[in-house]
Structure formats: structure tokens, C-alpha cells
């Protein structure tokens, strides 16, 4: 083994599924608008929202933002994988056909082109969380062990299917 192995079929199917996840997330997220009409009725006996009612509404808004960010990140993962694969097959011409087959599918079915209702580049940043929300990340996802810390090329988390080898 020369340290890494890239099967473009795998990379492109991951891209395709990431796009699919983004599209499905966008579709599900629209359902939360059906909660808007409930807001004035989340209220006590006098029709006034209590602190708890207001926090439920705040959490609905927050949830909406998490879903938009998730949608955006799936979309960006798809875009980054697709771009990396495109770069990769410039040098590994044997897999050019595999890449082209996926590209034809993507073009034919508008994969990666769905209207997500958001600008993924704008929504991909962290959602603002309320005071008291944790900053900690799970084991292995924290800044210290951030796998992306090692990346040297700064143009994308997944760009370069193996940066050790450069591209």
C-alpha cells in the first residue's frame, strides 16, 4: 500500500448521499413553519405567554436554525467531495469514467442542485446558542483533536482526497 487508496465510486456516492441528505433535510425543515400559528396560543389562562411558553418558542426557533445549518453542511460536504473527486481524476485518469458516470447522473437528476431555501455558504456557520449552552465537543471532535487541524491546504475540509500526497 502506498498510504492511501481512493475509489472514486465511493467518494461520489458519499457526495450523492450528502446531497440527498441536504435535500431531505430542507424538505423536513419546512414542516416547522406549521408551528408558527401556534405561538399566540402557547399562553396561560389570561392569554399571556409564560417564561416557559416563550422558551418553547425560542427552542423552536433554535431547532429551525440547527436544521438549516445541518442542511447547509450536508450540501457543502457534497460539494467538497464532488470538487475533490473532480480534481483527483485529473491525475488518476483510470477513474475518469466513473466520475463522468456520476456527473451525468447528477446533471440528469439535478443532484446537488435542489432548492434548499438557504444559501449553504451563509448557513453553515455555528448557530448562536443561548447563554448556558455547552461549548464542549464530544471526545475526538474537540479543537485539540480536530482532525481538520492537520489540514494544510485551507480551501476546504475535504478538499484533496489525500493531502499527504498533495494534489
Amino acid at each position, binding site marked *: 500500500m502506498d498510504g492511501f487508496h481512493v475509489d472514486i465510486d465511493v467518494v461520489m456516492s458519499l457526495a450523492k448521499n450528502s446531497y440527498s441528505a441536504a435535500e431531505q433535510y430542507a424538505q423536513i425543515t419546512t414542516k416547522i413553519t406549521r408551528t408558527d400559528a*401556534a405561538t399566540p396560543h402557547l399562553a396561560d389562562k389570561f392569554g399571556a405567554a409564560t417564561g*416557559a411558553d416563550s422558551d418553547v418558542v425560542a427552542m423552536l426557533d433554535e431547532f429551525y436554525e440547527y436544521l438549516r445549518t445541518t442542511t447547509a*453542511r450536508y450540501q457543502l460536504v457534497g460539494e467538497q467531495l464532488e470538487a475533490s473527486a473532480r480534481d483527483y481524476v485529473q491525475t488518476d485518469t483510470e477513474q475518469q469514467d466513473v466520475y463522468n458516470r456520476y456527473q451525468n447522473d447528477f446533471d440528469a437528476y439535478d443532484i446537488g442542485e435542489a432548492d434548499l431555501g438557504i444559501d449553504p455558504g451563509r448557513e453553515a456557520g455555528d448557530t448562536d446558542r443561548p447563554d448556558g*449552552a455547552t461549548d464542549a465537543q*464530544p471526545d*475526538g*471532535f474537540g479543537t485539540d483533536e480536530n*482532525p481538520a487541524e492537520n489540514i494544510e491546504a485551507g480551501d*476546504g*475540509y475535504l478538499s484533496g482526497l489525500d493531502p499527504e500526497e498533495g494534489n
Partner: protein
Amino acid sequence: MPDYGYTYEIDSALEHFELTLRERWYQVVKESVFNQVDIPAPLSGLPGSLPEYRTAEMFAHINYGQVVGGCAYVNWIDAGAQGSPGSISCEGKIRESYHYDLETIEYQGVETEVPEYTRCVLGDLLGAVEQWCWNDRKLISDALPPFATHNLTALEDARNALVSMAGDFGATPDAGGAGADDALVTGLTLTNTVDLLFVDRDRDKDWMAEWTGAAADRAANGIFASTKPTLFNHAIIANGLGTLINERATIIHTYQQNSLSLVRSATAALDQTTTTTSDHTNEWKAVQGLGMALSIVPVTAPYGAVISLVGWLGEQFLKETRSVSFSFTPHEVARNLHDAVVEMDGALTGSEAAYTQDVLEFRTALNAVSSTFLELYDISENR
């Protein structure tokens, strides 16, 4: 848009209560004059000055006046008390001039002379009854939790949308909740899609044999490791928020129904014609929080989207039943009702506190979840 259906229903119930209360009071006041005894104090209290009815003349008018046609008010009451006593007038006749045997009557052990006519005060008393029945209704109405502007349909739509989202995110209901719900059925394949992407950090995925190296490891351990925990948390958050909306709706609905049922039962108790009171009880429900009984909160490292689904206006919130027994006399029934309403409003305060506690627990749990498991691993910082 508010739903005015409830406001209409409770107003109608109170109206019926007031009318029935008044009919019973007319009888009580009539009997009090007949028997020359105290009128019991209504819920809202007796007026400061009632016309004096404990007189030989009123006694004679009510008890002996039948021979000359009787008291117009008594006749009106006995005929069913239709309309208002204000439309009736009574000439206060006691006897004809030739009824020499009624020139004196025995009143409270004393032979007392009475005239042919007296000023009949029963009309004034009945007018006072109308007033205090209205005051009683007002006292009860003011003690009821109004819940006048709430639209349960809007809350149900919101809850169903969230349950449907939980279904889309792959939620499966646990055995303790309401079980299967059509709202959970999804037409999407998002869980399958995410399964194709997700890499458990402890186990390699098939695709990792075909794409290896530093970039593949980074993808596997970063973004793709965060996909399934994020998905499951979305299922749990959607269901949790739906459950909290359901809890608020249950509070609204239950205390509306409690109010209607208490007023209607009190009215039924007033309608009774015997003193058998055993079957004139009413049960009402106190809404309780879920507390720790149901886990609705997201967890920091979920590996399953098992949710506790609570049915719409579900029984899980309604574990406590309280009851009230209604007495026979109208002043007691009104007081029973008022006491029950005050107690119910106290229970509502407890339900609000339980709801607040459930919201707080959910908020605390949500805040404890790392952003990586709420919106995926942050790839944007690395651009």
C-alpha cells in the same frame, strides 16, 4: 385566530346555572316568607337592607291570601317563574272587607289585627334574588380560569408537524408511550441515507476499505461520525418540543373541560328535586408534568432515536382526579361550586409549575448537547 367556541360554551353553562340557581332561590325565599324564617346567606352575601317580610301583614297575605286569589308573586313562582318578577305586580290583598274572621290572626302567639291590604314585599325580595344570583355567577365566573383566546387546533397542528418531523428523522416510539402514531409514518428515506454516510468511530465502515488515507480518516472521524447522533437528536428534539406543546394544550383543554363540567354538575345538582345528594358529585382532572417519567430530552451521545410519544392531550398528563360533592340547597351548591373552582384554579397553578419544570429540564438537556450533535461537525471553520 382564537377559538371562541369555549367562551361561548362556558357563558352558556353559566347562564343556565344562574337561571337554575334563581329558580331554586325563588322557592327558598317564598318558603322563608311563608315560615317567617331567616333567608340563608347566598355566596355573594345578603344585601345590606332587605325589606322586612317578618310581619303579621306579610304572614297573613302569604298564608291567608289564597282565599282572595293569593299573592301574585307566589302564583307566578308556582307557575314556573317565567320571565322576570319585575313584570308582576301584587296588590297585597289579605282579605275581603267582609272576611271578619280574618280581621285578627294569631301571629307568633299573639292575636294581631290585619288590614284588607298590605304592601307586598315579596316582589322586592325576588328582585334582590335576581341581583344576588347575578353576583354569585359573577363571583364564580371571575374565579374560573378564562382560557378565552386559545386555539387548540393551532396547537394540535404544531404538535403533529413536530411528530411528523420526528418520524422523518427516524424516531421509533417506545413501549411506554402512546405507541404507534400515523404521524410518525414517513415517506422519506433519510435514515437510510444517513446510514450510508455514518461511520461509528469504534467500527470501520465498508467504504473505508475503498477510500483510505488521511483525508478519508478525517471525513470518517469528523463530519460522517456526527451524522447519526445529529439525526437522532433531531428526532428527539422534534418529539420533545411536540410533547411540550401537547402539555400546554392539555392544560388549556383540561381546565376548560373542568370548568364546563363543574358548572354543569352544579346546575344538575340544583335541578334535583330530592335531598339525595350521593350522585351529585363531579370529577375533574389535575394536569401533571411528565417529569422524569418520560424521557423527552436529547442526550449527548445518542445511538438510538427511541422516543416516548405522548398521544394528543394524552393520559400521561392526567393521572390525578379530584372530586367535589354538591349539597342540596342553592346557597350551598353555589358555595360548593365556588370552592371547587378556587381549588381547581390552585391545581392549575400547580400544572403551570409542572409544565415550567418540564420546559426547564428540556432546555437544560438541550443546552448540554454539543453543537456537533445538533448541527453536524463544523466543517465551515476549516474552509
